[in-house]
């Protein structure tokens, strides 16, 4: 403590140097005066007395120096002097400094951006009280939620937790009040939820335990700000959600979106009351209806290992899965007989591996970029160090130690590194903002925003200092090298024959090798993007407009929903520009599984699970341009009539072995359907979906059933609503307004969402490959550019250092062509070594990256053949320009030049 205090005092003294100096001068003055007086009293003359006093003091200047050293921090002072000198030096070489800062800035920026993603998805704890003690509990390895009865049994029996709470992750509702009705997403939570996660409300309070069934609501801060103008008196007011009144009791903090940090909820209501908002809210009695996300807070003193042991025991006692499926829907019961958990707010274990791989690959790429940038700048600094040998020699001759000079060089490069760091952080701020603006192609709101936080800043700072130090090693080494005598005469001590540019050659080789790796990665990703973009989705997107509504948010009965949808369809079709209008509950390429999945039974045999169950209205295939291969389209199916279905070509191949399925019956969700047609393949879930196995049902026959029962595998409210697909003759954008008017003419309170043209929609659906290709491409492009500039710089510098040697060679009779070849050969050897090193590394890395590539081999022969050739060619050009220059050297001038 005392030491720290002393350091702080000295720091203070350092900042107020002037005042202390005067102070001490006065004190010293007094001391000498007193001493002199004493001397006179003992019989000395004034001069003699003063002389004695000064002698005993050990010299006034020495005393002052000793005092100053104690009063301030001498090392800080000299460091600041170094810093000052470095700044002057860097300002003088403005061009080189700009290049260096820009290079490092790009490198650090790329790293900070990727690390922002790491920080967001891996490191950031949930914004709740004591996040390390809050666990998210699941059933089985797949991370399945709890059912209500299991949750209750669990709560009654567990002893490891101080609190257990549950929530239903996504509930859509139509928010009324001032302005146009809007669809918002929220969560239904148990009344103790906020107490268990220990979230402090920004305003108001959380739910009381007695409010499990009360119409109360907690608003998210963003909704409160946007929709209610940050009304300070919001607590106690009522808001209208899907036609029901809720009393606001609190506002949750801005940072809190969902405890899992994945969903993006804007409001919270008690679970008991959520049935009002979603007519088909999952049943609370069904033991095998898994929908309740569960979090639990560890009791103080209980470790995770102890909790895991208790969970294991509890899992045996609780019947987690039913032995047999209830209505023909087989629930896979394998590996679902245990509890699993992770810290709440971390990625679910299923996604973790994928995310880790993706982020690792990206991190490797950006670290490579930074390494290339550093190699570049190191080269530049090294060149400068050679230029500055004379300066160094002079300073050494004047008494500077080599250590002092090395420190000076390191300070200089660290300043460069930090400058680059600042630029990088600015670049990364911009990049993370653009990243967060990207829209996920899922109809449910995921919280994907990436932003800078203190972890990123710390990381950027550490990287800046580290790269600064790394950069400084070569120049610092060079600074300590000069042989005084030679350097003072102006000879280049570093360019002695025999060890010419060894260090620089290593840097160049490293640079090219890293570029090989980088370029290969970019190549693979660009190819992957190309493949993804050229994949045939199976529909004709031109002229299609999409627009969604969710009548269930507005408590429509099935009958009313059907009537509503039919009326809109008729009104739309009557518009002059519109050819056709159809409804579906699931557009192609929608990641989320619309009507859920089910196993299809044929002649009592299970034919596998089909995740693409799509509900459509007649005319759907024609409107979307999907050819009907056999049979007919839906016609005038009725809710009570015999059930019919259309299946995709791939479905037929799988279930019927390619035989004609028309007229056959299949069972899905316990109902028997007659197959009346076969449609061509359409990509339903993602661009990487190659199964194409779709099962189409008619809307008229499903709406009733879906609402009447709550089906464990079917949760319409999770995906929410129906999408109107309109085909127009002209630009679909032009119909948007009249389409809105048609819907609002029927129900002015109906919230309309996800309005876009099919082409826009498909564009956004290629989110992941586009994101990956953009990230890799941008990073790789930066790296490549840096490497090329570096290579050119090194080669031309090498030539310029050898001007005299070349002059001598030419004076001795060497031909320009010979000189050119000499320089070229040197560059070529370096390039070949680099390619030989980089190629295998790229090969290994591409295996890692292959998990994100769609439709191409990780070892794409074309990329692996072209990249080395391309880089060698570039390297040759980079060498050739200086080689040409070398060949035109006039021997007379060259010999006179130094």
């Amino acid at each position: 403590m005392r030491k720290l205090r002393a350091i702080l005092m000295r720091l203070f003294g350092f900042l107020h140097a002037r005042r202390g100096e005067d102070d001490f001068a006065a004190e010293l003055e007094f001391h000498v005066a007193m001493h002199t007086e004493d001397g006179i009293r003992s019989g000395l003359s004034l001069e003699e007395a003063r002389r004695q006093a000064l002698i005993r003091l050990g010299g006034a200047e020495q005393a002052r120096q000793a005092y100053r050293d104690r009063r301030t921090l001498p090392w800080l002072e000299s460091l600041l002097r170094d810093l000052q000198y470095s700044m002057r030096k860097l300002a003088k070489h403005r061009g080189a400094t700009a290049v260096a800062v820009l290079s490092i800035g790009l490198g650090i920026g790329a790293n900070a951006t990727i690390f922002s993603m790491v920080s967001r998805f891996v490191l950031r704890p949930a914004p709740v009280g004591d996040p390390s003690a809050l666990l998210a509990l699941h059933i089985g390895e797949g991370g399945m939620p709890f059912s209500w009865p299991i949750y209750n049994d669990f709560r009654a029996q567990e002893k490891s937790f101080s609190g257990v709470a549950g929530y239903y992750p996504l509930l859509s509702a139509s928010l009324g009040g001032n302005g146009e009705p809007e669809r918002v997403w929220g969560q239904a939570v148990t009344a103790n939820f906020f107490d268990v996660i220990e979230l402090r409300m920004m305003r108001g309070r959380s739910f009381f335990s007695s409010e499990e069934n009360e119409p109360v609501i907690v608003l998210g801060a963003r909704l409160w700000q946007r929709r209610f103008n940050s009304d300070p008196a919001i607590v106690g007011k009522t808001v209208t959600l899907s036609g029901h009144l809720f009393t606001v009791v609190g506002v949750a903090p801005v940072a809190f979106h969902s405890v899992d940090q994945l969903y993006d909820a804007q409001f919270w209501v008690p679970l008991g009351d959520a049935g009002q908002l979603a007519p088909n809210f999952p049943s609370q009695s069904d033991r095998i209806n898994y929908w309740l996300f569960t979090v639990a807070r560890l009791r103080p003193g209980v470790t995770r290992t102890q909790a895991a042991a208790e969970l294991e025991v509890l899992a045996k006692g609780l019947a987690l899965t039913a032995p047999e499926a209830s209505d023909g829907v087989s629930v896979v019961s394998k590996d679902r007989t245990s509890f699993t958990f992770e810290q709440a707010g971390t990625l679910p274990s299923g996604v973790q591996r994928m995310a880790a791989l993706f982020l690792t690959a990206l991190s490797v790429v950006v670290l490579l970029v930074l390494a290339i940038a550093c190699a570049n700048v190191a080269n530049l600094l090294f060149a400068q160090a050679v230029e500055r040998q004379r300066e160094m020699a002079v300073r050494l001759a004047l008494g500077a130690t080599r250590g002092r000079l090395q420190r000076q060089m390191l300070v200089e490069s660290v300043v460069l590194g930090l400058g680059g760091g600042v630029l990088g952080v600015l670049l990364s701020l911009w990049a993370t903002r653009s990243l967060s603006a990207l829209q996920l192609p899922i109809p449910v709101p995921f919280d994907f925003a990436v932003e800078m936080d203190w972890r990123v800043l710390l990381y950027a700072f550490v990287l800046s200092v580290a790269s600064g130090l790394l950069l400084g090693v070569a120049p610092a080494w060079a600074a300590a090298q000069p042989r005084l005598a030679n350097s003072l005469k102006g000879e280049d001590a570093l360019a002695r024959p025999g060890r010419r540019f060894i260090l620089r050659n290593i840097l160049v080789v490293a640079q090219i090798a890293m570029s090989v790796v980088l370029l290969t990665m970019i190549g693979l990703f660009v190819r992957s993007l190309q493949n993804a973009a050229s994949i045939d989705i199976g529909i004709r997107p031109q002229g299609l407009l999409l627009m969604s509504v969710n009548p269930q948010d507005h408590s429509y009965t099935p009958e009313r929903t059907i009537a509503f949808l039919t009326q809109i369809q008729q009104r739309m079709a009557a518009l002059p520009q519109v050819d056709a209008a159809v409804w579906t509950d699931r557009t192609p390429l929608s990641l989320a599984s619309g009507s859920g999945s089910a196993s299809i039974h044929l002649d009592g045999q299970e034919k596998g699970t089909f995740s693409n169950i799509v509900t459509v209205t007649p005319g759907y295939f024609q409107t979307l341009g999907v050819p009907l291969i056999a049979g007919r389209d839906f016609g005038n199916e009725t809710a009570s009539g015999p059930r019919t279905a259309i299946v995709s070509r791939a479905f037929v191949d799988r279930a019927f072995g390619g035989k004609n399925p028309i007229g056959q019956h299949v069972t899905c969700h316990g109902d028997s359907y007659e197959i009346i047609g076969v449609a061509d393949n359409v990509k339903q879930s993602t661009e990487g979906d190659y199964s194409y196995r779709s099962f189409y049902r008619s809307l008229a026959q499903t709406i009733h059933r879906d609402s009447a029962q709550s089906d464990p595998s079917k949760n319409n409210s999770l995906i929410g609503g129906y999408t109107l697909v309109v085909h127009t003759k002209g630009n679909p954008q032009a119909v948007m307004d009249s389409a809105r008017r048609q819907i609002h003419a029927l129900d002015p309170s109906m919230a309309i969402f996800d309005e876009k043209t099919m082409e826009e929609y498909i564009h956004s659906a290629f989110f992941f490959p586009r994101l990956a290709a953009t990230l890799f491409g941008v990073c790789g492009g930066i790296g490549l550019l840096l490497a090329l500039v570096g290579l050119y710089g090194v080669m031309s510098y090498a030539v310029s250092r050898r001007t005299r040697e070349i002059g001598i060679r030419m004076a001795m009779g060497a031909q320009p062509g010979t000189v050119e070849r000499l320089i070229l050969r040197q560059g070529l050897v370096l390039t070949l070594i680099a390619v030989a090193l980089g190629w295998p590394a790229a090969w290994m890395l591409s295996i890692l990256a292959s998990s994100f590539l769609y439709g191409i081999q990780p070892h794409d022969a074309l990329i692996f053949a072209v990249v080395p050739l391309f880089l060698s060619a570039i390297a040759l050009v980079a060498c050739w320009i200086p080689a040409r220059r070398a060949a035109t050297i006039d021997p007379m001038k060259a010999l006179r030049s130094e």
Partner: protein
Amino acid sequence: MGGKTDVWQGTLALMTLKTLETMGPQHGYGLARRIEQTSGDQLQLNYGTLYPALLKLEQEGYIRSRWGTSENNRRAKFYELTKAGERQVKKAAAEWEQATEILARFLTPAEEA
């Protein structure tokens, strides 16, 4: 930076603190003379090193200083003990006594023998 200087640094600090404790507020010159007197003029201080030592004690919070007027009406800087300084005197004195006692045990038997 031999061991000798370190010992001196430590003892000078203790001597300073102890003198301030018995004498009350003192200026630098008075303090130096007093230390020499107390030592029976066996010690000859290098006055140049006294001031950095005082500064160190002040930075560590054992003493504080203020400008005042000396006995012959000059402006002088006076040093006085703080609460922490009082505690430190006791602690350091006890430590020092223990150290000398231990050392004495090594030295006395040799005399007896």
